[in-house]
């Protein structure tokens, strides 16, 4: 299992095991932040890849 799937499963388990609205809200915000981080990492890696293969710079 890759890191993203694993860590997001961990947070999901915390949400499911919590009975407190406030705590669940925090874990949800944590989950959303992790999702956004992984998305941005993917986008930046894509951008680096794209710029590396830009033949105009060869």
């Amino acid at each position, binding site marked *: 299992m890759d*890191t993203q799937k694993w*860590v997001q499963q*961990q*947070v999901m*388990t*915390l949400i499911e095991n919590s009975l407190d*609205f*406030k705590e*669940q*809200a*925090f874990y*949800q*915000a*944590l989950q*959303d*932040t*992790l999702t*956004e*981080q*992984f998305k*941005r*990492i993917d986008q*930046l*890696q894509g*951008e*680096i890849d794209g*710029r*590396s293969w*830009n033949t105009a*710079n060869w």
Partner: protein
Amino acid sequence: MKTLVIVAHPKLAESTTQQLLKQSIATYENVTWHPLTELIDVVQERQLLRQADRIIFQFPLYWYSAPALLKQWQDKVLTTKFATGSSFSLAHKELGLVVSTGSASKTFQPGAAEQFTMAEILRPYEALANKTHMKYLSPLVIYQFPYLTKIEQQRLYATYQQYAANSKFDHFAGQEEWINSQLKRKINTTKKAATQQSLQQIQAVLQSNEDTLADLAMTVEMMKQDEDD
């Protein structure tokens, strides 16, 4: 950072939206929840304003404006002499708005039911911030609260906490920093060993991602500079 939340709601006790918002910041020492009544002590109000770094007007949208409570407060407290003139007592403070409405988000656009965007409707507050040399923050608008799902309510809960207490809520890096600090606090206060271990592992990934993002952003920046040369 000290925040003053000026709540203008004629039926505050009955509002579930306001109760949720109030609960979300209940333990925040630097956030003052200040509901308005018709009795206004101008000296005390100005004292509260002077102490705050971020001032939030919080109200339900009544006929495209705030309830009369807020307008009455503005007219009495924000006199020309206090807010502009020679004193500019609010200069360099931030002005935020938390506005709730029963209409859907998609109706606030040209050609839709409300015709005008929320930014246009809230323009008088932007003008107020401009005139008094305050920094106008992007408003936090709550559309159709009763229709929010539990997860949407929880997202609002967390978003509002940052709107009230995070000085850098409007940048992703600021949000990351905020979540990271809250997570560290949670690790320190969690008693159950298994939960604490899980939180520590999550925090390690969060931190690692933050570092990776900073490195990648720097690499992209360098590539852009090379391309410009």
